[in-house]
């Protein structure tokens, strides 16, 4: 299995930059296989609509990294809405929650949610991403050497 197309949903631009850098290091590049949404509503519109012309790679994305704490619509609410509006799309994706939460309730809720494949505790690192991709059966390219 090759590298999946990834959708990153987080309201914090700094976190998005960090995650973009981490994903880039395992070979998932912004202009090739990575889309970033800075709020849940934008992500929902994207996933429930047709494939946007500028979309890089496969649609719907094979992997979604979703922040829980976002203003207005949070990660769980996005998943609930997606499950109702586009269940097939939701089922086709591997959704991992990105959580900085220190609240164990959030982690328990993530485990119980049917659309959640798993959760990753922030910060995202190359090690975590490699492990995740290996678990998903993806052939991770070797570390780029300079």
């Amino acid at each position, binding site marked *: 299995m090759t590298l999946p197309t990834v959708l990153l949903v987080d309201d914090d631009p700094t976190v998005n930059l960090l995650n973009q850098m981490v994903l880039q290091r395992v070979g998932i590049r912004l202009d090739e296989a990575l889309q970033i949404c800075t709020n849940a509503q934008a992500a929902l519109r994207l996933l429930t609509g047709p494939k946007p012309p500028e979309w890089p790679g496969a649609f719907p994305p094979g992997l979604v990294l979703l922040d829980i704490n976002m203003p*207005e619509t949070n990660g769980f609410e996005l998943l609930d809405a997606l499950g109702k509006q586009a269940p097939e799309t939701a089922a086709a994706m591997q959704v991992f929650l990105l959580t900085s939460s220190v609240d164990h309730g959030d982690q328990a809720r993530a485990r119980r949610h049917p659309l959640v494949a798993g959760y990753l505790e922030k910060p995202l690192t190359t090690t975590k991403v490699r492990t995740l991709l290996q678990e998903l059966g993806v052939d991770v390219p070797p570390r780029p050497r300079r």
Partner: protein
Amino acid sequence: MHQNPTSPLSTPPAPDRTDALGLHWGHWLILLGSLTITVALYLRSSQADATGQAIAFERESERVVDLILDRMALYENALWAGAAHLQASPNASTLNAWSRYAAKLSIEGRYPGVNGIGLVELVAREDLPQYLARHRIHRPEFSVYPPHDHPEHLVISYIEPSELNSQAVGLDIAHESNRRAGALRARDTGTATITGPIVLVQDSDQTPGFLFYVPWVDAQERFLGLVYAPFVMTRLMHGTLESQRRLVHLRVRDGGEVLYDELVPSHPLHDPDPSMSEQTVLEMYGRRWTIDIQTDLAFRSAHHSSTPRLILAAGLLIDGILLWFFLALARKNREAITYASEVTERLEAVNEELVQFNYRTSHDLVAPLKTMRGFAALCLEDIANHDTSQLPDWLAHIDQQAARLVALVSDLLDLSRADRPNERPEPIALAPLLDAAWAGLATARSGHSPELKTEIDLPGTPMLEPTRTQQIVENILSNAVRYHDPDQPHPWVRVRAHKHQDQLVLIFEDNGLGIPEKIRETMFEMFVRGNSSQPGSGLGLYLVAKHLQRMSGRIEATSREGVTRFTITLPWRDAP
């Protein structure tokens, strides 16, 4: 917030053992006990009162009866004295001698109620002419009347005072059965007697009366006649009883005939509903007098006791006060319970807010740390790979996150202080305050930054709480700088101050990005941020609103036609 953490505060419903009025059974027990005591005291007092009245009535009736008996005994003595006088000196039966004797008795003074004292002589039918001749020596007009068929005559020879009783002189009392029967009974028994009810010939009012006889015998115990006294019953009773203060009224009957009657509605002290009455029968010199005695109005007023009713009224008043007190207590209790549940509800709401605040705060505190760790991991990787080209970028991000954390902690500290008691207001010069705040924002204003314009038009220096005022100004200016429009060729921030009526009006305007439509309603709430791409805790305007609330101020915000305006009004107080 998607979480709904359970509040640790919860109130089990209080068991309610009270009734609809809010009274406990114990209250009713006390009321019932008090009521029982009241009624018992009332009954006891009433009973004591009734006993007292009965004793008083008995004493009073006995006194009245004794007065009548004593008086009759007194008259009897006078009559016996007359009889003894006659027996002792045979010449005493002459007119002059009898007049002198009667005068000595001084009837009017010593024997009030008696009409006179007289002498009745027994005259045999055949001796009548001789009797008449004897008396006509001194009284030529003397005659005996009326004629009758009885074998003997019983003629009133004299009666003193004669002028009051002149009609009785010469009356033959044997002509009438009552008079005759009484006289013969005195003769036959040798005792004092009285007649049945008669009307005296000398009584122009024709009211009931009687004659009181004592037999007159000579030394050989031969019956010569009677010493007698006529009585008009009303005079007798008035003479006997008038000087006494009485509380009872009476009626005297002899057989079926009424001798004397006070038990009539026309009597001024008559009590139509007497509290007590009794009947006494007296053996009265051969006659049987029935005396009906009743209490009168004087008795009623003398023995009317208000004590039982006072006890009842006082007891009921105390019971009423007790009931009122219990009801007031129950009402206060209900109010306290209501207040407690209201407070609990408020506490629960506050607690819920606090739980959400903690959740949000801990998240916001942890998030920058995690991001810093992420960039630190990138740094370490790059160093391991001997690639340091991007290290300055990663370190700059770490620094930025650290700054964000510092700002957040600072805001949280301000927030915790916002609920402290108010400071003492001080004269605040606004222009220097604004300049200082603006200078403090120098780092944030790097590059293309707005220009500050101030227009202060105040009649004096206002009195304001220094820390709160400073934080209000800093937070609003900070927002204006952070949300300035980078595409605006001439960005500006303008602060105007003036006094309007009793208010200090502060207007902050800028031509920045404006307030997004979606947060216009919520911008003064906790953790609401205009734009998540900008750093900030989301506590700035919340803190401003909180400070203003504490200072009795107001804030309004508008954002239209490229100008965002915050208008603050505060009560104006002049510096002394």
